[in-house]
């Protein structure tokens, strides 16, 4: 699959190549013995942060599990208000974006600057698609008929008195997840900007790409669990 974009053999123009932010010119933190130590420590730090993100959503999953056990009928009714096709489309979009994010890391490792930017752009487009579909086809439709969380709930045709719990958890889970999608897309947008402006990432300096991609994968992981739990109940 050799294309003209594959091998990035053109050297960067002088004003970029000589800029201190260019990946060849950036030093690693002085308190580390080697560049690899800097990379490994920072990546481990990112993993520790990701574990806190997992625990954040674990709280919501715990509430979900408790209330699903206690009020299975309300959960079944609530799930029937959701369209699994839209959820599946969003799942596919996020999986593809996860692939392009991992691909972007690989491109940075191999100094494929153009493909790095292309992959980042596709990932961000997928993020915008995800949030757009969620807000336009799901939230807008539901909120206008009153299927809202907590005391905002005003849908007159709910069939189970505990259905408001379902809606609260639905909005809490998917809303917090959508917020993380936006945060992840912003991080990747920052990476894209610096890549475009300074060629800031390359084989010896791609930590920011790696960490942003890791955050993005956690966002995808959360959705992999949210989708069947919310959309595919009986």
């Amino acid at each position: 699959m050799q294309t003209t974009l594959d091998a990035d053999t053109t050297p960067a123009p002088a004003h970029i190549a000589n800029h201190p932010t260019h990946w060849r010119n950036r030093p690693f933190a002085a308190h580390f013995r080697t560049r690899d130590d800097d990379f490994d420590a920072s990546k481990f730090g990112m993993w520790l942060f990701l574990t806190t993100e997992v625990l954040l959503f674990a709280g919501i999953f715990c509430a979900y599990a408790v209330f699903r056990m206690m009020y299975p009928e309300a959960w079944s009714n609530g799930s029937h208000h959701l369209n699994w096709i839209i959820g599946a489309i969003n799942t596919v979009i996020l999986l593809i974006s996860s692939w392009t994010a991992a691909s972007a890391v690989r491109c940075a490792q191999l100094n494929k600057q153009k493909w790095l930017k292309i992959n980042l752009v596709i990932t961000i487009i997928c993020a915008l698609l995800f949030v757009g579909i969620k807000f336009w086809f799901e939230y807008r439709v539901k909120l206008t008929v009153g299927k809202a969380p907590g005391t905002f709930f005003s849908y007159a045709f709910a069939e189970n008195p505990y259905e408001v719990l379902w809606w609260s958890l639905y909005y809490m889970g998917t809303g917090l997840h959508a917020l993380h999608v936006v945060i992840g897309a912003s991080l990747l947008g920052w990476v894209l900007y610096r890549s475009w402006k300074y060629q800031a990432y390359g084989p010896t300096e791609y930590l920011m790409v790696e960490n942003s991609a890791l955050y993005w994968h956690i966002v995808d992981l959360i959705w992999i669990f949210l989708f069947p739990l919310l959309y595919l109940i009986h």
Partner: protein
Amino acid sequence: MTNHDTTTHEEHAHGHPVVSWQVQLGVLLVLLFFTFTTVLFYNAESWVESAFEIHLPWWVNVVGAMSIATVKALLVCMFFMGLRYDKALNSFALLFCLFCVGLFLGITMIDLDTRDRVYEWKKDSVAVGGTGSGLDTPSIDARFDSSPAPSFNTAGLSIVDFRRQQGLEDAGSELAFWTAHYHHHAEHQHAADVNNFFAQLGYDHHVDLPDANHAVPRTGLTAGLFSAVDPSEAHNSHAAEDAAHQPAENNAGH
């Protein structure tokens, strides 16, 4: 994917393993396949329940969905996030986190299940709202009432029943209320439709047809054999005027 193993580490960016594009694309395809599988499992479950008229136990759905989700998560973690090629410390961090999540969920469940060990009356005492104060609880001190959410007196009703009552008042009559609902959601009789407007409005199309296991003798002419219009449609059109306050939901939901 086995013939791509030799290209897994095609280059080393200063000691860091580079995952080949074949592996990444392969993992994506497998993930998409498992997404298809989980949707298929859900639809198959629905089909099995309706075709064989059995009720599957609740855990079938959860176990099926969660096992497929776990496989997908493993693939994302190992290949996209690079744990397969990484230092073991990163994997340990994630596994320890999952252990903590297990503790969190497990101990919560144990707590819920054993509340009657000390006080019998505390078992099953989680009420909607959960904090001991409902929408009608009188305020202890106005300085604590800073919730931004709307609060109102539901006269002891659950919020769902309260909103239904409000909807009934806004629609004017029960007929108008249920017409508005069944116009877009005629799948089954609503749980609160105690006066059976579902049948009154003619949405009750279920006809007992004979099948291999039971015969239903039918006499008389086929309904509508000599009519020019569908008699059930003609019946519905008289009750179809939408006088309800609630805006109708479009087809994006069920």
